[in-house]
């Protein structure tokens, strides 16, 4: 009975002590145990671990993939001495926590700035070899790959693996942007003019073709019409020849009579006659004898 209170207190103390000396290493972490600032143990495996409370302390380092995202784009020179603004991000992770801790003294910010520097140098070197066209389109992948490999080789020295270096923006600075806009505008104008002149040309072609078709249609129609008329004329001529050939002289006379009738038939036709024609034979002389002069 008298021992119960000490037992209870002891249990509580024991639990307290236990909680101070036990720690869990998550699989997402490395743990480094320090004793008075010195590294005693490096724990790379997950599990529950003990440390001497108050004497030893633990620092955790993340073993997941981390990102360095350059907040501000950097200016780089390309091979043709053009400035481009480049914005990139880097994926890295700690692979050797001892090395990492030793080289940067556990100061992650220092590690990050060193990695940034490495990447920047790599990009600068690589961009200097490439043209603008290469870096915006054709050889983005190669540039990223080369920079990644170089940076990775360097980063291993501080226990870090570089998994990926990726370019985000590769743009022209404002000064050059203006000239790019000018060029874009003139290109568009060229396109617009070309489209319009193509339109005019095509319209002209269509019109000309329509005119041609009209001419051809009409000419062919004329040809066929003349042919048909000729047929008619020929048939008519044949009919006349057949009928009139029986007495051409009489036909001439008869036809002349018709023609005279048709030719002189209104008041506008003025005939000036001498009264000595056959017609006026009886006009002056009922005997019909022609006056002898």
């Amino acid at each position: 009975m008298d021992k119960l209170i000490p037992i209870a207190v002891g249990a509580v103390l024991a639990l307290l002590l236990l909680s101070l000396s036990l720690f869990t290493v998550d699989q997402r972490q490395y743990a480094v145990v320090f004793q008075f600032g010195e590294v005693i143990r490096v724990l790379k495996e997950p599990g529950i671990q003990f440390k001497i409370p108050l004497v030893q302390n633990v620092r955790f380092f993340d073993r997941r993939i981390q990102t360095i995202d350059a907040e501000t784009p950097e200016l780089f020179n390309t091979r043709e001495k053009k400035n481009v603004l480049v914005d990139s991000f880097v994926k890295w992770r700690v692979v050797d926590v001892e090395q990492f801790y030793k080289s940067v003294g556990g100061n992650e910010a220092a590690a990050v700035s060193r990695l940034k520097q490495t990447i920047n140098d790599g990009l600068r070197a690589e961009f200097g070899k490439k043209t603008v066209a290469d870096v915006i389109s054709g050889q983005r992948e190669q540039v990223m790959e080369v920079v990644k490999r170089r940076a990775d080789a360097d980063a291993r020295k501080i226990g870090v693996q570089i998994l990926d270096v990726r370019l985000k923006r590769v743009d022209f600075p404002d000064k050059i942007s203006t000239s790019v806009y000018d060029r874009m505008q003139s290109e568009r104008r060229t396109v617009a003019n070309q489209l319009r002149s193509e339109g005019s040309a095509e319209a002209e072609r269509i019109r000309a073709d329509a005119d041609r078709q009209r001419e051809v249609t009409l000419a062919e129609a004329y040809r066929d019409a003349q042919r048909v008329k000729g047929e008619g004329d020929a048939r008519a001529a044949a009919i006349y020849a057949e009928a009139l050939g029986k007495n051409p002289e009489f036909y001439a006379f008869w036809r002349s009579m018709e023609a005279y009738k048709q030719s002189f038939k209104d008041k506008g036709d003025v005939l000036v006659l001498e009264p000595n024609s056959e017609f006026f034979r009886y006009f002056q002389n009922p005997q019909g004898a022609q006056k002898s002069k």
Partner: protein
Amino acid sequence: MMSQHDPNRGRRDGPPDLDELFRRLNQRLARLLGAKPPQGGGDAPEPAPALALKGSLLAAGGVALALWLVSGFYVVDAREQGVVLRMGSFDRMTDAGLQWHFPYPFERAEIVTLTEVRSVEIGYRGSAQNRVPEESLMLTEDQNIIDVQLSAQYDVKDARAFLFNNLAADSDAKDIVKQAGETAIREVVGKNNVDFVLNEGRGQIAVDTQRAMQLILDRYGLGVRIAKVNINDVQPPAPVQAAFDDAIKAGQDKDKLRNEGLAYANEVIPKAKGLAARLTAEADGYRQRVVATAEGDAARFRQVLPEYNKAPVVTRNRLYFEMMQQVLSNTSKIVVDQKKGSGNILYLPLNQLLDVSKPGVSLPGAGPAVPPAEKTGPEAANAGEARSGREVTRGRELGGR
């Protein structure tokens, strides 16, 4: 990563039968402690106050133990998946329902929402008007600057990978997805030229960007699936917008010009065809007419000819006089009896003679043979024949048939 560890989860206040519970707990604890016998753990009957103290201590211990055990309960929603870590390393996945894990510090559970679709915006925030130029402006292959706004929807396909592989700034790993999106869209746009991106290429670019993002994120083992990439807006940048619009308008102008040409053609060609049809029809009409006329004339002639052959002179004269009568009755006539050998020049003011409808025209004498013509205005029945007693006559009086 947020821990879902919550020691107070599932705690119940005031169970109905405390005494009963405590008693049972005591028995269990006694059995448990039996393994490590407490000092002086005899079963000697103790005095009541001591017994009470002992009981309350045991009860407190029991409650603490119960609470500790209860802290292992956690609930997984239908849209979620639980990931249990045993002593820091992945142990198992758990599905929806009430679940239990060994309490701290042995196991812990983390919960990942699977089905919720998360999305990231590139080039804008919230609405298309709210542009972020440094994200949306990019270069095409032909070194044109273009303004692209896109969004990507994604969900978690592998909760374990999602939890363990990447350190993200927020619990949905939006920052990582967005970085992938930014690099992917620029890569894709950088491989295409401006016209393709602006016009027919939008769908293709969305698909290519989605594929590129998925590849990048799979390489990082993020455990997400890019469900969809939407190219919300593609435009030329503001300073060159007018020029681009004009180029589009030029395309429409081209069509317009072409259509005008077609309209002309559609007017001219049918008209020509119509005219051609008219010519053809007229020619056909002409042919039939001349043939019919010829046939008529020939028939008439054939009728007349036998009669003529019977009495040629009479017929000829008759025809001649008929003709003369008809001609002279319908025309204006001037009979001039000029003596042969007279040296006078005959002058006929024809234009005045023709103007027969004017009354009172006096013709100046052109010679003895031409007295002034006398107009007979009132005698309209005579159809304005100029009569001058001697020389002018009317065919009608010359006896017709």
